[in-house]
């Protein structure tokens, strides 16, 4: 099958790419657009390492076809910091040592950002369930959950 020409918005910028129908959005991001911050851990939607937001909705980019993206908009970890300023979640993850190997970290940050946009004051249980689709094997989740809850409190306080 020949490749399809797709026009989409990636991290606020208009992009065009050629895409085999079988390629996933994750394949497109990593291999065609060189945005390797989204990670492939399972290709089945079970680990969350490839989390992005698609038209504002949190999804696994391994479960979206690249050809579905025509006219759609995706945000990845690469666009989370603005300029030299980290997003408060990124800063808190660093301060709270909420990462060890760092492989799952982009997915957690993208998912946590989506959580706080929807629910600025999550309980520990809400945060744990929201992030249940993001697997981490290093931290036992403790410092990640604390970092998310503390960032939420900081962001509420600064408003």
């Amino acid at each position: 099958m020949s490749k399809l020409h797709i026009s989409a918005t990636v991290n606020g910028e208009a992009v065009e790419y050629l895409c085999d129908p079988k390629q996933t959005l994750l394949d497109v991001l990593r291999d065609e657009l060189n945005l390797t911050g989204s990670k492939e851990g399972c290709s089945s939607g079970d680990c969350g390492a490839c989390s992005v937001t698609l038209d504002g909705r949190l999804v696994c980019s391994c479960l979206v076809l690249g050809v579905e993206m025509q006219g759609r908009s995706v945000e990845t970890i690469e666009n989370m910091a603005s300029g030299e300023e980290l997003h408060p979640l990124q800063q808190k993850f660093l301060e709270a040592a909420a990462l060890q190997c760092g492989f799952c970290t982009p997915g957690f940050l993208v998912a946590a950002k989506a959580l706080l946009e929807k629910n600025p004051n999550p309980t520990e249980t809400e945060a744990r369930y929201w992030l249940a689709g993001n697997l981490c094997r290093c931290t036992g989740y403790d410092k990640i959950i604390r970092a998310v809850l503390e960032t939420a409190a900081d962001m509420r306080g600064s408003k």
Partner: protein
Amino acid sequence: MAGYEGKTFKWVGTRPIRPDGVDKVTGRANYGADMNLPGQLTGRILRSPHAHAKIVSIDTSKAEKLTGVKAVITGKDFPDMHNGVMPGDEGVNFHHLSSNIMAKHKVLYDGHAVAAVAATSAAIAEEALSLIDVKYEILPHVIDVDLSMQPDAPLLHDDIFTSGVNPKPEKPSNVVQRIQMQLGDPDAAFKDADVIVERSFKTKAVHQGYIEPHAAVAEWSEDGQCRIWCSSQGHFMIRTLTARLLKMEAAQIRVMPAEIGGGFGGKTIIFIEPTAVLLARKAKRPVRVVMSRDEVFRGSGPAPATSIDVKIGAKKDGTLVAATGEFRYQAGAFPGSPVGPACMAAFGPYALTHVRATGYEAVTNRPLCYSYRAPGAPLSSFAVESVLDEIAQKLDMDPMEIRIKNGSKEGTQMVYGPKLKAVGNLECLKAIQSHPINKIPLGPNQGRGLAAGFWFNLGGQSSAVVNIAEDGTATIMTGSPDIGGSRASMALMAAEVLGIDYSKVRPIVGDTSAVGFCEITHGSRVTFATGMAIIQASEDIVLQCRQRVAKMWEVDVDAVKWEDGHALPAGANAGDQKPLSLAQIAGKAARTGGPLVGSAAINAGGAGPAFGVHICDVEVDPETGHVTVLRYVAAQDAGKAIHPSYVEGQIQGGVAQGVGWALNEEYIYGEDGRLQNSGFLDYRIPVASDLPMIDAIILEVPNPGHPFGVRGVGEVPIVPPLGAIANAVARATGVRMTDLPLTPPKILAAIDAAK
């Protein structure tokens, strides 16, 4: 070791942001699969669908003709290796290792690699795999360790003869080895026991579950030089083994360490790099091989299934009088099961004068069984802690009291021979004993479980270089991959010795051509051993600085001392000199003898054993068997915590893995010997909503074998959770279960059976 006792640390023990942190929260950090070279091809591996079969033929002609396919290889492309272990092989059987990477005449497990292709796209590579025609003659298989040890079991290898038995066997067997270690005379000593508990246990194989699949990019140049970018727990290991397996010289190969997305022992051995190199060589283009999650489960190095008998006898007052354990550990298709460490660690937390540990290892039709965090110890410890808990119940004794009463401490002789030096076992037990969790009342269907764990920790070879720039900032380089924050620990130790700000130290993980040899990141050795190399290399810089300043001041080097990053007169006879900072000395380096380069290369002994004690509360749904972990507290002796946040992180991560091991994780095989749950959907590692916060308590009983008192911290956290959870479930349900994992169906069946 001299110089640091009683010292108040300025940097060691603080919690700064890790040097590699920003790259990892912005997606910039490069892991194994992120490398993309010009002209790079996609490599894919064809794997056996059979548990055990003879390879009759492999026809790759159709695949080779497919447009876009640039190389196809099979086992025939790998050089033949000597079958056996020769001096200089460091205990590695290269024939086995090579045969695991690519099957030669037989496939020995579902997922065993048989061929590989490199093509211009993933889709073409996958199509090419489907065009490779492998004819198999299926053989009977064996998955279970007890069945594998039977004399009539399907035989995997005709060249394995059980070692450690008398007389030497003449017939080949799946049983690789028998080992035994003993103190005193346990058989006689059991006669003095008032209560004896003897139980048999079975556990299932589990996977390390790192989120990053194995990935490697290889490039071959016309002059025979080769570069490999990969994620591993030791790029020097990758270089050594690739060179040996492909009959190359080590210096021909340059291995670049990518960031590593978790390993836990599973990335301490080689799986795909030689395949990538051979494909790149044949295709004359760079090749990237990345395992799928299915391949990771089927074709990497999970931890063993086991079958264990433990017997412990005690006096009425709780004094343990004798203990024995027989530990039957499954290996994968090739030898390599950690039954030795399992025997050594099983009874580690207890002072026993009459004790025996016997170990067996048997090959099975499963993927290579390899290291997973404190290899072997969680399983043997689970059995011992379960039996001990039952003894405490029988004696109506507090489970903590029996552990403190019998706890090993400085001077205790271990079953493997030596006596313990200063250790923190009792300190951990007492920290848990006085923890507020004990005061929380338990509700219906709830139980509290306690367990202790031991791991001896490793030292070994490490190198480090410290380069001081002209402005006094430092670049420090080691060859130890940073798997969980070790760059931060290295920088803290260097800052401490050099006396400069942590922010002025940049740690680098150097490639195999840039820095001296470092053993793999394993056995909790990096902060200890590579850290010791960093300390010595930094001390080398301090000495050089004092020597330079002595020249400037025209005094003896002893007249110059080093404090807080400055050279100072050591006493009045040095004259009235103003302190010189490292930056000032570095600025004059050209005129005092050239660049300031400090280095150290060591083979570190003196690794201090680690102890950990865990307590947890669970609730069991009596109608479904579902277990909820309500609370979890873990105390551990870190010797000296260099970066306490990452020590806590090691403890919390180990606990989470251990909880998964206890409750839900298992390799599930069908009758056909094929793995049925090779994905994260049905191989159930804990998710965020499965766990409570994990209270990590760090104790510091300094290791006399390290200048700062450091002990490895990464292994022991996974040892106690299996026992702690099992003991809590036993107390919540009133039923003691001996088969892991404790899945809801098993728990419900056990509850119903006990009614």
